[in-house]
C-alpha cells in the first residue's frame, strides 16, 4: 500500500499514521480497557513461563488437590502440580493457537472476499456458495470430526480452527470490496493501465484493511474460545498445557465433585478475560476505523 521511497520516509509515514490512529483510539475507554487486559496476558505468555516452575511431574500424595495457600497461590491439581504455574504456562499455548488460527482465517477470508467482490459474476457466485457451505455447517461438529481425523496435535488444532473460522470474514470483506471497486479511484487505476492484481493489492486491500483488522480481533476471540472448547472436549494436545487442556483434566478428574474450585475457575476466568479483551478492542477499532462513526 505504501510505495514510498526510502526507508526513512516509510518510517516517518508509519509514525504519522500511528500517531493519528492513537490520537483517536485513546479517547475510547472500552478500547483502552481491552488493550490493558491483552497486554497483561501477552506479558504473562511471554515472560511468565520463565518465572514459574512447572514441571508437570507428580509432587507427592500430600501435595494433591491443595486449596490456595502462600506456597501455591491457586492451589494444586490432582497430580499435585501448581495451578497458578499451569495457568501461566498454559497462556502461551492458548494465545498461540488463537492467534495462529486467526491469521489463517483472515488470510483465507480476505483472499476469498476480495476475489469474489472484485471479479463478481461467476467467480463471485462460486466463491460465495462455497463460503455459504462453511457458514451453515455447524462449526463445532465439523471441528470435532476434523480434529478426530487429523489427530490431536498443536498444528492440527490451529489448522482446524483456522479453516472453519473464515466464512463470516469473507462475506464482510466481499461486501466492502463491492463498494470500493465502484469508487472513481479504482477506475482511475484502470485508466493508467493497472492490472487486476495491482488494483486488488494497492487499492482494494488498503481500503478493506481496517475492516480486516477489526475483524481479526473478533475472530481471535472466537479462535481462543474454540481452542478451549476443543481441548476441553479432549481434542487438544494433552502433552502441552493450555487453559483448555487444564479445564479438560479438571473436569475429567472430577474437580467439581472434590469441590476443587481453584482448579476450574482460574483457567476459565482467563479465557473469559482474554475473549473480553479482544472483543473490547474489536468494537473500539470498529468505531475508530469506521469513518462513518468517527466523522465529526
Amino acid at each position: 500500500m505504501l510505495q514510498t521511497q526510502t526507508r526513512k520516509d516509510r518510517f516517518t509515514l508509519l509514525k504519522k499514521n500511528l500517531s493519528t490512529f492513537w490520537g483517536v483510539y485513546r479517547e475510547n475507554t472500552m478500547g483502552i480497557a481491552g488493550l490493558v487486559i491483552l497486554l497483561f496476558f501477552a506479558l504473562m505468555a511471554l515472560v511468565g513461563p520463565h518465572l514459574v516452575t512447572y514441571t508437570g511431574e507428580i509432587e507427592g500424595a500430600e501435595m494433591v488437590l491443595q486449596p490456595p495457600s502462600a506456597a501455591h497461590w491457586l492451589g494444586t491439581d490432582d497430580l499435585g502440580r501448581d495451578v497458578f504455574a499451569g495457568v501461566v504456562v498454559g497462556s502461551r499455548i492458548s494465545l498461540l493457537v488463537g492467534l495462529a488460527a486467526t491469521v489463517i482465517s483472515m488470510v483465507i477470508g480476505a483472499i476469498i472476499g476480495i476475489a469474489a467482490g472484485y471479479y463478481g459474476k461467476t467467480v463471485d457466485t462460486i466463491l460465495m456458495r462455497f463460503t455459504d457451505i462453511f457458514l451453515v455447517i455447524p462449526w463445532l461438529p465439523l471441528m470435532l470430526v476434523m480434529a478426530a481425523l487429523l489427530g490431536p496435535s498443536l498444528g492440527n488444532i490451529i489448522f482446524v480452527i483456522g479453516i472453519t473460522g473464515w466464512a463470516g470474514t469473507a462475506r464482510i470483506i466481499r461486501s466492502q470490496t463491492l463498494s470500493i471497486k465502484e469508487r472513481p479511484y479504482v477506475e482511475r487505476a484502470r485508466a493508467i493501465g493497472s492490472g487486476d492484481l495491482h488494483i486488488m493489492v494497492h487499492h482494494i486491500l488498503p481500503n478493506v484493511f481496517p475492516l480486516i483488522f477489526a475483524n481479526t480481533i473478533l475472530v481471535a476471540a472466537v479462535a481462543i474460545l474454540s481452542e478451549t472448547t476443543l481441548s476441553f472436549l479432549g481434542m487438544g494436545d494433552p502433552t502441552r498445557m493450555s487453559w483448555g487442556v487444564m479445564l479438560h483434566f479438571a473436569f475429567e478428574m472430577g474437580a467439581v465433585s472434590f469441590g476443587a474450585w481453584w482448579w476450574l475457575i482460574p483457567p476459565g476466568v482467563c479465557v473469559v478475560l482474554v475473549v473480553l479483551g479482544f472483543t473490547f478492542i474489536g468494537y473500539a477499532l470498529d468505531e475508530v476505523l469506521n469513518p462513518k462513526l468517527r466523522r465529526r
Partner: protein
Amino acid sequence: MQSLVSVDQLEVHFAVRTGFMQSMFGKETPVVRAVDGVSFELGKGEILCLAGESGSGKTTTGKAILRLVEPTGGKVLYEGEDVRSYNRLRLRAFRQEAQIIFQDPYESLNPRQTVFSTVAEPLEVNNLCRSLAEKEERVAQALVDAGLHNPRELFLRYPHELSGGQRQRLAIAGALVLDPKFIVADEPVSMLDLSIRAGILKLMVDLRDKKGIGYLFITHDLSLAWLVSDRIAIMYLGKIVELGSADKVIKEPLHPYTRALVSVIPTPRRKVITQQSLLKGETPDPVNVPAGCRFHPRCPEAKPRCREAVPLYREVRPGHFAACHLLDS
C-alpha cells in the same frame, strides 16, 4: 489540424437487468441507449467540449473512448488505429497516452495513498522508471506542472490533508506524469468553489499550449465550455445535436435545444429566466427514446415531421454541424 481522436458512430448500449419473473415470461430486456451514434473528431492540442444535461451520455462517451466502458458499436480511432481492436498490451500502451480526470477529487484519489504514491503509481504500473531518483524527479516535475509548488514537502501527505483545489491538481499531476497526448476531463471543476475554478481551468489550457495535449472536456456548464474550448458539441439523449466553434455555438446556436440551454446560462448580473425561454419537463429516460427527433416532445418549435423522421446530422454552415428538421429548407 491533424486528427488525434476520431469517433465514428460510437454506440454504448446497456441491457437493463430485469427481474427473474420478467425474464421467465420472455419479456424483452430494455436497453439503455446511453450513447447512440456519436461522431466527432478531436485534433491534436484541441479542446473539444461535450456539453449536455445529466443523462445525455457525455460521460459515457468519454469513458467509452478510453474503453473504461466497452463500446457496443462504432469506431474510435486514436492516431488512425482502432482502439476497439487493441489487445491487452496495446491497450496498456494506449492508456499511457490517454488519461482521464474525474469530477470529484474527493472520490477519485485513494484515501490511503500518499501524494507521492498517487503520482508514482502510473510510473510503477508501467515500469517506466529505472531508479528511485528518476521516479522522484518525475513525480516532483508532474506536481510542479500541475501547479503544486514545493512538491517534495507534499510527498508524504494524504489527500484528506489537502484542500479541494490541491486535490484536483494532484489528480491532474497523476495524469500528467505519463506525458499524455489526450485527456478526458470529466467535469473537472464542478465540485470546486468558484474562486479556485479559474486556476484549474487555466492550468489545463496552459498545458495544452505547452505540451499540446488534446482535451475532451465534459461539462454541463455552457459558460465554462465557451471559456475554455475551441469547439463545443451539445449532446441530448445519446446523440450530438450540434457541434461547432465555441463562439458560434453559444452566440449563434442553430438547434432549438442549444438555444434553450444558452438562454438559461446563469449570470449574476441580470434576470434572464422568462417563461418563454424555459423548456417544459426534463430529459426523458434513455430507455424510452422518443421516435423521430429525440428532442421533439420538448421542442417549442416542433413540426409534425419531427415526430416521424430522424433529422440528419449535417454541416449546416462551414464547420458548424446540427441535426434538426427546421434547418432543412
